[in-house]
Each structure stands twice: as structure tokens, then as C-alpha cells.
């Protein structure tokens, strides 16, 4: 393969990235449509102390650690956000902050593993193993099958939860499923993009797709495609410039959104102007 894709580790990274585009594009659509961006960011951040503990205790390992942390975060937020005095993300914010503080504290005092800080927070090309690629493939498959099967109920419940419940479409189950898949996808992507920027892949490509279309299925397909494109380009950029892959991918995704938003805005303005001119 041509540079910058000329080493086995970068091939693994690319494969992982493309595979992850499937769950991230599909889940990202629901994150955008259901207003789950804060939660998605929170799950990512919450895995940080889990990774630190997992790295410090080799018996546990970073994957188990991050899974436990993600599960704990999801449970804590689900339990406490029912209190109406604390709505608006206060619980998410607080748990997130505690998770970060804990991670930082453990890092600087108990475990002192300096090097992996950046790779834990922002990903590392070298950290993606063959086993990680297999995990990405598995998560992609699980997410695809599950979301295709439940897509209709999710759509109906997102559009009108009040109706979907009595209609027998089980919105509560859909919620749990979605949050669980989110945690799983985030944990799987950690070696590649890290805790702090993983939400970028979830939110930005899907949001970009939403700008372009008013239909659900095209939005999902476009989100997956954009995710794959931005991941591949981001990984290439990371390799070329020697910067953390998470930062490259997130910055590129943002750039993509900006470009599409600008073009969409120009088109809208042109249409508006021609309509005024024509209708005068």
C-alpha cells in the first residue's frame, strides 16, 4: 500500500476505523436525533479512570476497566437524572467531572503511568492490536443487526414517545438498548481515538448528514459514509503529522461539518434570492 498506509499497524488502524464507521454512523444518528450528545461525551470521558485502573492492574486490563466504568456511568446517570431539580445534564456533568478527577488523581499519584495518558485520552495508532480489530468487527455486526431490527420502534419512539408506549412499541427497552450499544461502541473505539474525542465520531458525521437530508434512511447511510471517510483521512493525517489520531479525526469531522454547513447555507440563500426575484 502507498504511504502513509505502508505499515501493518496502520493497516490495522484503517480496518478498525472503517469497521467502526458502521456502529458509529448508525448510533450517531440516534445520538443526534435524541439529544444524547452530552451523554455520549460523558460515557467517553467516564472510561478514562477505568482505563487508568485497568492499565495499573494488568489482571484487569484496560478493556474490562473501561467497560466497567462505562456501565457505571450509564447506571449512575439513568438513576439520578430522574430528579427534576437536577435536570439539564447536572448529573451527567458531575459524574463526568468526578470520573476525570479520579482518573487524573490515580494517574498522578497511584499508578504513575505517564506515557499512556495521551493514548488513553486521544488514541494512538500503535495501540490498535489485531484483537481490537476483531472487536470492532464484532461490535459493528452486533450494532448493525440490532439497529436494523429495532430501527422502526426507535424511530416511532423518538418521534412520539407518548404514542409509542401505549402502541406497544416499548420505548423504555429501546432506551436501554441504545445506551448499552453506545457504551459498547465507545469502549471499542478507545484505542483508536481515546476517551475525550470519541464523541466527535458519534455526533459530527451524523449531524453533517442531517444538514443534507430530511429522511432517516439516507441520513443513516450518509452518516456511516462520512464517518468512514473522516476516520480514514484522520488516521492518514495522524500518521503523516505524528499527532494523536483522535485529534486529527475530530478536527477533520468538524471541518467537514463546517464545509457542508457553509455550502448548504449558500444554496439556501441562492434559492431564497431566486424565489424573491421570480415571485416579484
Amino acid at each position, binding site marked *: 500500500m502507498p504511504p502513509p498506509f505502508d505499515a501493518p499497524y496502520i493497516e490495522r488502524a484503517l480496518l478498525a476505523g472503517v469497521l467502526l464507521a458502521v456502529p458509529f454512523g448508525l448510533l450517531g444518528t440516534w445520538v443526534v436525533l435524541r439529544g444524547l450528545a452530552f451523554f455520549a461525551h460523558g460515557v467517553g470521558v467516564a472510561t478514562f479512570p477505568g482505563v487508568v485502573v485497568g492499565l495499573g492492574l494488568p489482571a484487569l486490563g484496560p478493556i474490562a476497566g473501561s467497560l466497567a466504568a462505562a456501565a457505571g456511568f450509564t447506571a449512575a446517570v439513568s438513576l439520578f437524572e430522574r430528579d427534576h431539580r437536577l435536570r439539564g445534564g447536572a448529573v451527567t456533568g*458531575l459524574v463526568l*467531572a468526578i470520573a476525570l478527577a479520579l482518573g487524573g488523581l490515580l494517574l498522578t499519584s497511584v499508578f504513575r503511568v505517564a506515557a499512556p*495518558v495521551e493514548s488513553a485520552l486521544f488514541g494512538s495508532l500503535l495501540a490498535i492490536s489485531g484483537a481490537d480489530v476483531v472487536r470492532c468487527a464484532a461490535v459493528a455486526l452486533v450494532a448493525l443487526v440490532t439497529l436494523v431490527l429495532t430501527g422502526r420502534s426507535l424511530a416511532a419512539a423518538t418521534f412520539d414517545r407518548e404514542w409509542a408506549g401505549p402502541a406497544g412499541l416499548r420505548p423504555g427497552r429501546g432506551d436501554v438498548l441504545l445506551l448499552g450499544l453506545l457504551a459498547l461502541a465507545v469502549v471499542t473505539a478507545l484505542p483508536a481515538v481515546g476517551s475525550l474525542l470519541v464523541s466527535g465520531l458519534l455526533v459530527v458525521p451524523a449531524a453533517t448528514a442531517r444538514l443534507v437530508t430530511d429522511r432517516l434512511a439516507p441520513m443513516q447511510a450518509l452518516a456511516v459514509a462520512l464517518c468512514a471517510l473522516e476516520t480514514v483521512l484522520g488516521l492518514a493525517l495522524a500518521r503523516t503529522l505524528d499527532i494523536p489520531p483522535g485529534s486529527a479525526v475530530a478536527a477533520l469531522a468538524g471541518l467537514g461539518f463546517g464545509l457542508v454547513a457553509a455550502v448548504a447555507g449558500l444554496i439556501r440563500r441562492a434559492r431564497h434570492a431566486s424565489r424573491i426575484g421570480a415571485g416579484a
Partner: protein
Amino acid sequence: MRRALVEAVLAGALCGALGCFVLVRGLAFFGESISHTIVLGVALAFLAGLPVSLGAAALAAVTVLAVQAIGAGGRLSRDTAIGILLPSLFGAGVALIALSEGYRSRLEDVLFGSILGVTDADLILAAAVAAAVAGALLLAGKELALVAFDRSTARAMGYSVRLLDLLLLGLVALAAVVALRAVGNLLLTALLVGPPVTARMLCRRFWPMVALAAALGAGAGIAGLYATWYFDVGAGPAIALAVGCVAVAASLVAQGRRWERRRAATAGAGPQ
């Protein structure tokens, strides 16, 4: 150490007080995102040889405006808008820092704060911001609270809700710039959310809650610094963790109280 103490008290009090407005307005995500997006400003300012605080403030303004702009179309929610800006701008900032020399230590400073290295210039900035915030709260505090609790009434009474929103967001951004030094942007949310959440559990009325939150924030700053001194842990995380523990403890107490009340209510209520 004395400078660090003053900085901690100021940062804690500022964030604690403003955090109450953030809490009531449901702006926790916004507060969290500001703390990340200003990193890009820090990186740009550093590259341009400008004061870091200037870059941070500029990016805070950009974030505020961009969130409004993205959400304006009606297709994307505010949550999504913030979810777009946070990773994009923060990612770009991290990328820029990674491209420059000596990046590892700078990244850690930015992420976790370096309160022990605070200078007189930092203190002056913090004091100025505290004065500005105090002034704003004295002059427009009632209006800001009204907009937080009851937007439609505020609008009906003729207040420019938009301007007041911008004022609040601007104040939050200023506090973020100050707290950047103290606890780093990662832990800014802890100071912005923890003391208000705790105060909310313990107070019924708004202004006592604000005062308590400011006190708690300052107290957490001091406690965290002492933890650093005695236990040799990072100052930033220690402060944030102190805040977190207090908040969790208060939540548990309040939750326990609520369970008591509910049990009493259902036990007392007979058949209709």
C-alpha cells in the same frame, strides 16, 4: 503557595456562583464544552505569541456564537451543536499543541491545571474577573435569575432575553479562563457543577444557594490544595475530587430525606 491559595479561592467562588445559573438553565454541557474549546485558543495564542488568556477568551466567544448559529436552523438541537463544537475545536487545539515543541508537559498543564505555578499576572486577571462577575451579579443578578427560571415572563416584561443570555454565557466563559489556570479545563466542570448541585440539595431559595455554592467552591479549592500539600497528589484533581465527594454526600443525604418523606406519605395515605 499563598498565591495558589488565593487563586483557588477566587476560581472556586467564581465557578460556584456562576454554576448556579448554569445549573438552573440546564447549561451543564455548555459549561463543559467551553472548558474544552478554549484549549484551541490557548494553542493559537501561544503560536502567535499573544497572551494565552486572550486566545482563550476569543475562543469562548466563538463557541457561544457558533452554538447559537448551529442551533438556529431548527434542524439541530443545542445539545447537538455543542456536541459538534466540543470535539472539533478541542481536537484542533490538541493537534496544534501536539505539533509544537515541548508538547507533553504543556498538554498536561492545560488538561489538569498548574495552580502551584500561578503568577501575579494570573492573580490580577482572576481578581479582575471576580470583580466583573460580582458587579454583573449586583447590577443584573435579579434579571439573570428571572431569565433562568421563567423565560417567558422575562420576555413579557420587556427584558432582552438574548442579551441576558449572552451576558451569562460571557461570564461563564470568563470564569472558565480563570479556572483554566487553577484546575485545568478538564476539571472546570467539577467546579462549575459540584458546588451548585450540593447547594441545591441544601437550600430552597436561589440567592442563598448561590452564596453557599460560592463558599463551597472556595472551600473545595482550599481543601484540595491542602491535600496536595500533605498527600502529594495533583492539585487540580484533588480540588475537583473534593467537590465531587461533597456533592455526592449531599445527594445521598437529600435522597435519603426524600425516601423518608415518600414512605411517610404512602403509609399515611389511606383509601380515597
